[in-house]
């Protein structure tokens, strides 16, 4: 198999590989189930967010409000279920959160698809609106007693085990939700007309319109879908943390977008892959969890992420610029 070094995916995969090699040399204990499950656990919520962010980038937009949607959905779901239906099973809690997410996503969708406002501005505005509305009118105290369904989901482990040194490791069932989201989104993007239309709209809105794509419908769908995914990520986050803290999640949005772009998605729209997105998420989570293993203190974490973003986007940008200069 020929390796294409101009692709972001290759670059990110190589950085991950290099990181793991250095980490294993400095601490042979790094290569363990515990590290792997920690990594997977850390990627659950971020992975769902990243898939959502990828979809928006593919359609040629940018969404910074999805973390606020997630926090809103998570908090209101916990509150509503506690008040009206504390005994419902976990899947009902998921359905409620996803419905709340869809509703908020639809608000974004209306402004973007039907009023034609720029996506960055709308989502910047709704980020403040959703968060402000939740904190001012719904509540700003964290909910420590979650509804029964969410508590039950929080205890569901897919894999449990003991390390050689006696500590425990486990993988939460929520990981399956992330896998499901990735598979469903892959199917949507590559096996349905709607998915191809998303690429078309992102590539060129005008061209898409002329070949008969319902551009407004596609855009509206994208923001609703992102809302659903954000709602799902929110309810999973609260269940795993066993608390619904309204101040959680918001602030992650730019890191998520950075992870997606690190994986090769273009900000201009129309180009990006799920593989790259997942690699980008893996790299960011790896750096966050294990920087200390390769001998860099944790206070340097944000510098490391910043350098990664600059390298991960700089190398392809520099190559593209040189290629353009050669062609001219």
């Amino acid at each position, binding site marked *: 198999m020929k390796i294409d070094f101009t692709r972001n995916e290759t670059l990110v995969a190589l950085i991950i590989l290099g990181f793991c090699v250095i980490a294993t040399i400095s601490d042979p204990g790094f290569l363990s189930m515990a590290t792997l499950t920690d990594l997977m656990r850390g990627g659950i919520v971020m992975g769902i967010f990243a898939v959502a962010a990828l979809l928006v980038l593919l359609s040629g937009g940018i969404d910074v409000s999805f973390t606020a949607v997630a926090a809103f959905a998570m908090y209101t779901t916990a509150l509503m279920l506690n008040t009206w239906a504390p005994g419902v099973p976990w899947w009902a809690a998921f359905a409620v959160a996803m419905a709340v997410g869809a509703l908020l996503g639809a608000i974004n969708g209306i*402004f973007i698809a039907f*009023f*034609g*406002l*720029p996506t*960055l*501005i*709308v989502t*910047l*505005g*709704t*980020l*403040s*609106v959703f*968060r*402000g*509305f*939740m*904190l*001012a*009118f719904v509540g*700003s105290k964290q909910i420590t007693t979650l509804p029964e369904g969410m508590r039950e989901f929080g205890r569901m482990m897919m894999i449990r085990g003991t390390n050689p040194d006696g500590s425990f490791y486990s993988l939460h069932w929520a990981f399956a939700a992330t896998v499901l989201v990735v598979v469903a989104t892959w199917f949507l993007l590559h096996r349905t007309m709607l998915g191809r239309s998303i690429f078309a709209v992102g590539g060129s809105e005008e061209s898409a319109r002329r070949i008969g794509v319902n551009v407004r419908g596609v855009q509206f769908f994208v923001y609703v879908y992102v809302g659903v995914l954000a709602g799902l990520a929110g309810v999973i986050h609260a269940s795993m943390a066993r608390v619904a803290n309204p101040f959680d999640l918001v602030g992650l949005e*730019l890191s998520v*977008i*950075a992870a997606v*772009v690190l994986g090769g998605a273009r*900000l201009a729209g129309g180009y990006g892959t799920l593989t790259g997105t997942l690699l980008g998420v893996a790299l960011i989570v790896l750096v966050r969890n294990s920087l200390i293993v390769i001998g860099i203190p944790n*206070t*340097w*974490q*944000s*510098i*490391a*992420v*910043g*350098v*990664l*973003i*600059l390298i991960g*986007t*700089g190398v392809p*940008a*520099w190559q*593209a*610029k040189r290629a353009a200069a050669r062609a001219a």
Partner: protein
Amino acid sequence: MTPSRINGLFASTEARLAVICIVVFVAMALLSPDRFLSVQNLTSMAFQFPEFAILALAMTLTMLTGGIDLSVVGIANLSAIVAATILTQLAGPAATGADAALWLGLSMVATMAVGLAAGLFNGIAIAVFGLPPILATLGSGLIFTGIAVALTGGSAVMGFPAAAAWLGNGLILGIPVPLVLFAVLAAGLSFILTRTGFGLKVQMFGANPLAARFAAVNVTSVLIRVYLMSGMFAAIAGMVVMSRANSAKADYGSSYLLLAVLIAVLGGVNPYGGYGRVIGVVLAVLAMQFLSSGLNMMQVSNFARELIWGTLLIFVMLINTRPNLRLWARKRTGPAPNS
């Protein structure tokens, strides 16, 4: 006034903003007349807004080129921390008179140097290496914040000579120093954008980068200078924050980033480049501050303020898209009289 005149009055984004600004001011004055119009409130507003307003000016400049600077808060904090370190380690809280003034001057020079270095870093990443501004500055912002955390271990730097408070809390001829700083920077930026060749090149590049290149604009140099200026503005804002808080910390003003973007966009700056006027940004800042202070007086929670800011942003964008609809209608029915 004929209807067309009135239409003309509302034709520009800035005019509509001025109306919104006045409406907000009058509404707040009517809702709590004795407190909103009090001298105390007016001066406290004048001390409050310049720090994020200066960041909004930096944002405006970068948005004019179709870029964005997400590292402004990181630059502001990093440069404030460098200045704070000079003031605490070298001058010490006991310094007074000429000694204090000297160290204050030196720390300002150091601040500007940090701001310019950070801006140069951004400019090179964007102009020479071709990184998209949103990612380059997102990454560099993390790096600047990271350096600030690594320098201080995440804790606040404090213990300045008394003179350092002048920059954020002093008065010149009865006018708050931060306001004077903001006015000078806003006027300066407005002059540069409208009266110099550089300003014209910035707008040309923002409107159409390719056309600017073909018109022999040195794109690399223009972009680097834009991010240099943005870094410098951010450093000045950092000094004001430091002086007002009487300390410097790596995570101060983190909410100012989105606020600065919001104000620039509210001020009619096109985030895709090519259009924006300083007067619009000034009006947007004033509208935000009137709204924010007025709501504060009515005991509205901070969170509701966030909600209202977001609503205002979307509302103004909706109004701003209406002229396009009008233009479209006019095209279909032929040219309207008096236009």
